[in-house]
């Protein structure tokens, strides 16, 4: 608020928008928690039919997981570059993050089509339904993240570049992006490896 001099605020010492954003991330845990719970409950069920283990391709998914993991690195480098006010580097790393995210998404689309052709369709059975809804919900998050990153990159291209305190804030998009990454860390283990 521009009347900050008259009006004290932020008695907690955390910037208001950042606080709100962390509360949002905390609730996201519950979203994914519900999905993972459902997935695990059904994973333990004895039900006839095709299972994820019949169709999946661990080397492929490992590579795409690695790609997403590395996008967290490029994201944090973009953030770091902006903190030192290096506009050009910020844009480069932002674009790199968006591209890595897009590669991950492409991998997911490829994976889904492969599974589909092997007869593992959305409504085949509970194993396929939970798999698609869980990983699809995550994929939607990645997609939104890529759109936000590209928008941010576009804004950075214009006029005076990006700033840490204004507008579509790089910091929040970074937080969001890392969050999407940690969700995948959990999903990769829970869905594929165990």
């Amino acid at each position, binding site marked *: *608020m*521009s*009347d*900050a001099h*008259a*009006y*004290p*605020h*932020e*008695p*907690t010492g*955390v*910037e*208001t*928008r950042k*606080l*709100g954003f962390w*509360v*949002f991330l*905390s*609730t*996201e845990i*519950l*979203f994914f*928690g*519900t*999905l993972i719970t*459902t997935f695990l*409950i*059904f994973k333990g*069920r004895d*039900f006839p*039919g095709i299972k994820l283990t019949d169709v999946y391709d661990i080397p492929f998914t490992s590579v795409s997981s690695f790609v997403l993991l590395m996008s967290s690195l490029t994201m944090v480098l973009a953030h770091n570059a902006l903190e030192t006010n290096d506009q050009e580097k910020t844009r480069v790393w932002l674009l790199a993050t968006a591209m890595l995210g897009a590669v991950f998404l492409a991998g997911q689309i490829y994976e889904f089509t492969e599974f589909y052709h092997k007869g593992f369709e*959305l*409504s085949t*059975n*509970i*194993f396929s*339904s*939970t798999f698609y*809804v869980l990983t699809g*919900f995550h994929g939607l998050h990645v997609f939104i993240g890529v759109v936000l990153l590209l*928008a941010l990159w576009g804004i950075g291209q214009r006029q005076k570049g990006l700033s840490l*305190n*204004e*507008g*579509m*804030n790089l910091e929040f998009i970074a937080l969001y992006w890392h969050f999407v990454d940690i969700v995948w860390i959990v999903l990769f283990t829970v869905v594929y490896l165990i």
Partner: protein
Amino acid sequence: MTKIIEPKKQRNIFSRPSSEEGVWSWITTVDHKRIGIMYGYAAFFFLLVGGLEALLLRIQLSQPDNNFLSAAEYNAMFTMHGTTMIFLAIMPISAAFFNYLLPLQIGARDVAFPRLNALSFWIFIAGGLFLYSTFLFGTAGAPEGGYLAEEVSRLASAPNGGWFGYQPNAGLKYSPGTAMDYWAIGLQILGIASLVSAFNFITTILNMRTKGMRLMRMPVFTWMTFAVSFLLAFSLPIIAIALFFVTFDRQFGTTFFLTEGGGDPVLWQHLFWLFGHPEVYILILPAFGIVSEVLPTFSRKPLFGYPAIVFAGFGIAFIGFGVWAHHMFASAISPVAQAGFGLSTMIIAVPTGVKIFNWLGTIWGGRLTLNTPMLFALGFIGMFVIGGLSGVTHSVVPADTQQTDTYYIVAHFHYVLFGGALFGIFSGLYFWFPKVWGRMYNETMGKIHFWLMIIGFNLTFGPMHWLGLQGQVRRTWVYAEETNLGFWNLIVTIGAFILAIATLVFMANWIYSRRKGEVAPFDPWDARTIEWSIPSPTPVWNFSNAPEVKSLDDFWHQKYGEDEDGRAVRREGTDELLLQLEEEGLNPKEEIHLPSPSYFPVIMAFGLPFLGYAIIYKSIPLALIGVIMLLIGGFGWGTEPLEEEFESSEEEPESGESKNYE
């Protein structure tokens, strides 16, 4: 008045809305007070609709073997009654209180994110309209060979699977047609509204408090808002995903909750009640907060045991997450789970009891003023104790299995949610009436309202206890003559009509007093909290200067000191102080910058129903409209500053870091 400066015009997708009066000023407003008032009116409208649905139900049940409603219509009516009252009436009325009062009670100029606030209001409206559009477009077919097959009227073309949407009954096989899809997606949209407002209120309470407003100096109502916001933030995601599953089951042929595909109907119950039980506290805690403000004011005593009441509130909120399975004692859950949840249900009665005793301790020995808000607050305590006690009986599992799905349960939760939540809300509506409108309500009509309501309420829901224990089953549209349930059912119906008359009295009072009521004096109740230290109706800018709070009940301590016996004594010069406060409140010295109105929240909010229709009717164009509205809204929002830059008459110091964006 002219201190508010005209903003400079700036181009965006649309130029800034500029009207200060008329319809557009309300649609584009980001002022928490206006949003609160709109929440209140919209929610009250839905309360009337839900009440009408209840009256139809009661006419049908007024005598045995009645034919007023068909079975299909009855199913639609009780589903819509429950859904409306919970999601479209009580929750948003509480949100109206949060919106209007929260910034005033913590001495802030607005909530932390004013445009998000407008967004959650408009999403609520969009969701409500979407849900009710089922009466126009929805279809509720009949399951194959079901007894509903005869006719399906418009009245029955509404969701009919109960507000709890139990699976597989609410699945496609037993609830064909689109009505239950309207229900699932409608609740999804409403959930987004509440979730957004929860982020907003949590952040507001933590970060927008004025000087000296430490956490333990906050009014209890603010504390309860805080607790409710946490409940919302952590319980709504669960139901959102569960509704997501339902939509997938119905639209895309998955079998999350259907046994034929390996799914699990009991999982739906878990997920639903994991949300559904915290929801109960979401409905009741705001009323706790309101009553905790009203009782001390009219007892002229500080609230007895303020820390206890605050911690009990959070205790309830926390334990409230651990009792959900007591709704499922009659379902297939293990005896160990039944025992555990029975215990936790008993335990949650403890913090609730603590609060009751705090309120009684507050009234004890006080100088009571028995005006309308106080009467409603006292009525609240009485009715809520009855509802609470019948609630504890559900923790005894064998008794609960007997009572499940009978009118005993209906009696219980209406004593809690009507006798509790709604009485609390009425108390608050009367209490803050002068604050909002600057006029007094009519005391006589208020008292008539109260007495009609408490008589009608007990006539309506009291007999349901024994009807239930005699075995009358919920959600059944007829009962046979031989059951001998006719007499008490007739009494219940008469009670329901008395409630309707009471509501009409309330509305008449409201409409009359808003225009013709006496002008409210400054601080009409000799109140305790700082929202009364500013003029009524509240000026657009709330506080002319950021108040500095030195203690709990700060406004009271400005007015009163203590003599050697600890009695409250009005300080000398208090009258002058009040005059001075009024003068200052109306004439701010500094220039005040308020957040500017915006079109984008409305645009975003009304994109969501289009996405909903797109899912139901598998329509790409509708989906595109929805996405485009969201994109326009989102982009416009992201690039539009919260406040316009001002052409200031004086030189404004360059503020280094502006925090104009959300």
